[in-house]
């Protein structure tokens, strides 16, 4: 029992440190990628003992700055709610990590350890639920700032996230119809099997439409450009305008955490999670014949690496999208959500159902 | 009255005028350099050429008298062509040193050239080099290069001051204005030469290089130096000037007023303007062992109470007021109401500045601006022995330092020792400052408005030109506020209204 708790604790610590490290790196990636896309160089000044390393220390400098900035609470605002909002927002983003599998199981001694913080059979529902709860951070933050504009920003954010939550959920129904379980590791495992004997049964192949809808709705969930209507601090005033210091930093981090989680989810649900094509627990078995047998530890490492690479790619893609598109107007945003994504996900569900019945 | 036609329009003008004067009367400006309304016309500059119908050549407007039915063209092509030519010739010998010329900005040559000039240099020859720093008077520098030989200065000295120090030497292109050997112009009106010079040939050393003319603003006022009451223009730094400069007034020029000063003022009035900015009393001071700054309210309270007590004790004769002769008529009237009517029994005496030498032109013997105005009221003349007057007084109010010119300062300070309260109201620092308890800044003439009656009996109004310096206030305001605090306010108002 104690050992189980210890393992879970280690898994939590490892998971959170993985997430936070990636978040830090992502802030750097965000700056650098935007710079490179725009033919610039980007942040490269932060240095430790004259060592610059392409500005990799910039996130550390940012973090230090955030922590030492004055924490300002607007007068006549609700101090408690104002303080709790960023934590709520951050918490519900991070907790989603619990259901995501980093790899298959490993066996140390007699203990079988899943590379997943909690293996729950309602994983997918849990994730959707946690995403929805993230709204509270926004609306509370907007309201507690005692500022009309932040409240408006919070309202905008709530409306947007609720709208896209539907599309997000509906786009997954097709998957649920195909996959045998709601448990994410099971889903990943299922994606290891082959279609027609040589195509991996990745979600993106079985559910291309569902993938697009999920990706777009997921981007909307992260509240980033082109869906950054709740934020837009300088132009349209978002919900965290009245925040400063590390509280603001938490909201900012929530953004990046959500980017990582959406990437992880897309990877898990549509790109085979930790699966490497044709890699089985004992090594590669290619459909055209030929085998490469590998140690099971190497396989595990390859699987985890595969998962991380996929996540990294989607992070890159989301950042690229953020620096490509202009912001939606609010009516366009709502049109896209209600008039395109939701009908399309219905089409997707019906289409999937028909194919399942016919095949 | 005769009929003439100028530029196709018919006018009726008085007979005997020249074309230039007639057209000036009807509002048409004919450019000119050598013509000056107060001087005989000379016709040397050729700038005022106009076309007269029936006369083949262009004629000088400044010396051609008008005739009945004359048809004059002042602005047709031929006239403007002639002006261009004249300006071109003038500039052939005139250096283009406007940047360092003090006249720039108010120079006739500059103005006319910008209006009519031929903006094209056709001369290949070098301009003549001459003496640029020729001292013709202690206060004037003559620049031979800039001179256009309009001879205004020569004529001024011959006709107005009748001293004739200047003459035109040589002839043709060698001509120049000069004094005889080293005999500088020493008369009291030499400053006017710089004013009447239409270009920058004669410049005033007092104003030389101090500031450019376009930074200055001018407002009319009256010269307080003598009892003539000459009309003057005070040239002061425009309030829009972006930098902080201690000096406000830069020069004084005459304002034409044919009845009083013509077009001129004397050097005494011209150069004695530094009192406006220098040695001013800036704040009300009270001596309590040493001088300390107080507010006006404190002063009104103190002295008002003292006057109140003296009135209550029926000891009005203990109040003595010593007034100078340079206040405005309105201030004298206020003094009359305040001390003679509301507190009968107080003694007011007047003391003016000592008389100076008069000259035969403008400067008068009496150096007080408003003796005539003060004379209208029941102030005692200065025949009284001041020491006797001060005897047994409890409150003495001085207006100005003039009293010290009339008595021994030693005796005065001894006489003042026994007096409890001594008040000085003056604009500038002076000998009385060390002898009194209260020192109050009043404004100079340029900072207040009112009227003066000059020695001829003409009363002239003048307006505020500058903002009061520091906390200084006009005497009339001081007296009115004091009346409020000394318990005679009602009486004061009634008398004033009745008056």
């Amino acid at each position, binding site marked *: 029992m104690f050992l189980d708790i210890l393992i879970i604790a280690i898994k939590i610590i490892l998971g959170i440190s993985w997430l936070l490290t990636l978040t830090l790196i992502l802030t750097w990636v965000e700056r650098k990628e935007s710079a490179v896309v725009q033919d610039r160089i980007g942040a490269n000044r932060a240095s430790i003992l004259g060592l610059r390393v392409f500005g990799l220390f910039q996130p550390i400098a940012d973090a230090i700055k955030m922590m030492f900035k004055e924490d300002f609470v607007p007068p006549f605002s609700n101090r408690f709610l104002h303080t709790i909002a960023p934590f709520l927002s951050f918490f519900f983003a991070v907790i989603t990590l619990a259901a995501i599998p980093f790899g298959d199981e490993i066996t140390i001694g007699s203990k079988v350890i899943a590379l997943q913080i909690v293996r729950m059979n309602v994983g997918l529902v849990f994730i959707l639920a946690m995403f929805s709860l993230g709204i509270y951070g926004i609306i509370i933050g907007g309201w507690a700032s005692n500022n009309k504009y932040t409240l408006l920003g919070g309202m905008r954010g709530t409306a947007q996230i609720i709208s896209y939550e539907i599309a997000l959920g509906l786009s997954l129904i097709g998957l649920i119809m195909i996959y045998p379980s709601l448990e994410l590791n099971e889903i990943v495992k299922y994606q290891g099997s082959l279609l027609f004997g040589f195509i991996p049964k990745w979600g993106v192949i079985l559910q291309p439409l569902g993938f697009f809808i999920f990706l777009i709705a997921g981007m909307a969930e992260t509240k980033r450009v082109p869906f950054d209507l709740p934020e837009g601090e300088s132009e349209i005033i978002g919900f965290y305008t009245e925040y400063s210091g590390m509280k603001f930093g938490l909201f900012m981090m929530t953004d990046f955490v959500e980017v990582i989680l959406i990437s992880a989810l897309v990877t898990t649900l549509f790109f085979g999670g930790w699966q490497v094509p044709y890699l089985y627990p004992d090594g590669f078995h290619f459909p055209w014949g030929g085998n490469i047998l590998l140690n099971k530890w190497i396989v595990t490492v390859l699987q985890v690496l595969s998962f991380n690479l996929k996540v990294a790619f989607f992070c890159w893609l989301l950042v690229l999208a953020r620096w490509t598109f202009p912001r939606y107007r609010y009516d366009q945003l709502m049109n896209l959500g209600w008039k395109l994504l939701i009908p399309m996900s219905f089409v997707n569900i019906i289409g999937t159902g028909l194919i399942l019945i016919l095949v | 009255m005769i009929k003439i036609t100028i530029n196709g329009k018919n006018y009726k003008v008085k007979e005997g005028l020249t074309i230039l004067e007639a057209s000036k009367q009807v509002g048409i400006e004919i450019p000119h350099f050598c013509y000056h309304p107060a001087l005989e016309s000379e016709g040397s500059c050729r700038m005022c050429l106009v076309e007269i119908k029936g006369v083949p050549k262009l004629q000088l407007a400044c010396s051609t008298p008008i005739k009945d039915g004359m048809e004059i063209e002042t602005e047709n092509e031929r006239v403007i062509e002639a002006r261009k030519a004249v300006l071109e010739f003038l500039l052939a010998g005139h250096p283009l040193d406007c940047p360092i010329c003090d006249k720039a900005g108010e120079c006739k040559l500059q103005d006319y050239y910008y209006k009519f000039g031929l903006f094209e240099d056709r001369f290949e020859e070098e301009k003549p080099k001459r003496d640029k720093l020729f001292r013709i008077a202690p206060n004037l520098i003559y620049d031979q290069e800039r001179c256009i030989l309009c001879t205004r200065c020569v004529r001024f000295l011959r006709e107005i001051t009748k001293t*004739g*120090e*200047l*003459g*035109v*030497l*040589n*002839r043709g292109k060698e001509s120049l204005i000069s004094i*005889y*050997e080293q005999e500088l112009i020493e008369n009291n009106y030499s400053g006017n030469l710089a004013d009447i010079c239409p270009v920058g040939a004669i410049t005033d050393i007092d104003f030389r290089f101090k500031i450019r003319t376009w930074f200055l603003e001018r407002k009319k006022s009256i010269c307080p130096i003598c009892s003539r009451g000459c009309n003057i223009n005070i040239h002061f730094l425009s309030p829009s000037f972006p930098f902080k400069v201690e000096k406000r007034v830069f020069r004084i020029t005459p304002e034409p007023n044919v009845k009083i000063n013509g077009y001129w003022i004397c050097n005494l009035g011209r150069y004695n303007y530094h009192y406006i900015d220098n040695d001013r009393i800036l704040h009300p001071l009270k001596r309590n062992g040493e001088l300390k700054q107080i507010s006006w309210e404190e002063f009104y309270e103190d002295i008002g109470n003292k006057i109140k007590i003296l009135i209550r004790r029926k000891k009005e004769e203990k109040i003595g007021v010593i007034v100078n002769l340079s206040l405005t008529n309105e201030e004298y009237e206020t003094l009359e109401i305040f001390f003679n009517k509301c507190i009968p029994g107080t003694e007011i005496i007047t003391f003016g500045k000592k008389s100076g030498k008069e000259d035969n032109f403008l400067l008068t013997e009496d150096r007080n601006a408003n003796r005539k105005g003060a004379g209208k009221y029941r102030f005692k003349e200065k025949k009284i022995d001041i020491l006797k007057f001060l005897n047994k007084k409890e409150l003495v109010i001085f207006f100005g330092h003039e009293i010290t010119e009339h008595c021994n300062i030693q005796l005065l300070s001894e006489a003042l020792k026994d007096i409890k309260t001594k008040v000085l109201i003056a604009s500038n620092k002076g000998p009385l400052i060390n002898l009194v308890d209260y020192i109050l800044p009043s404004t100079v003439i340029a900072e207040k408005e009112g009227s003066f009656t000059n020695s001829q009996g003409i009363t002239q109004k003048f307006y505020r030109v500058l903002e009061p310096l520091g906390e200084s206030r006009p005497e009339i305001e001081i007296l009115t506020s004091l009346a409020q605090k000394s318990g005679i306010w009602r009486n004061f108002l009634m008398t004033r209204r009745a008056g």
Partner: protein
Amino acid sequence: MSLKFSPQIEKEINKIIKNYPQKQSALLSILHLAQKEFGYISEEVERLVAQILDIKPIRVREVVTFYTMFHQRPVGKYHIKVCRNISCSINGAEELIDYISEKLGIKVGETTPDKKFTLSVVECLGACEHAPCMQVNSEYYGNLDKKKIDLILERLNNDIND
């Protein structure tokens, strides 16, 4: 004032003054007399004339500097005035001026040390038919060349008058 006219000239001056309604109108005539008397018009003479006519000395100077026949500096016994206007210049006056100044050892406008000759150049003498020409005191000499000038100067040098 130390300088005075001789009684004879003074009498003449008084006579001239009486000819005019205003005293100062006699200025030109008196200046001519003064030049005759003193040879040239110095500052002292100017002051003297001004005193006689009751005007400012600057007015006298104005007149003196305006007219070229009044001398402000002493001139030599013979005042050589060479014409330099068109006709004379075409016929070689410039050359002659240089020649004379070389010969006398003085520049234009100067006087020889022995106070005998003064050389100056003047505008047209009204004798273009004799160009180049010059005037010595009141005598005219026309059709000049270097030889003729040598001859004239020699004669003048020996004080031989025609």
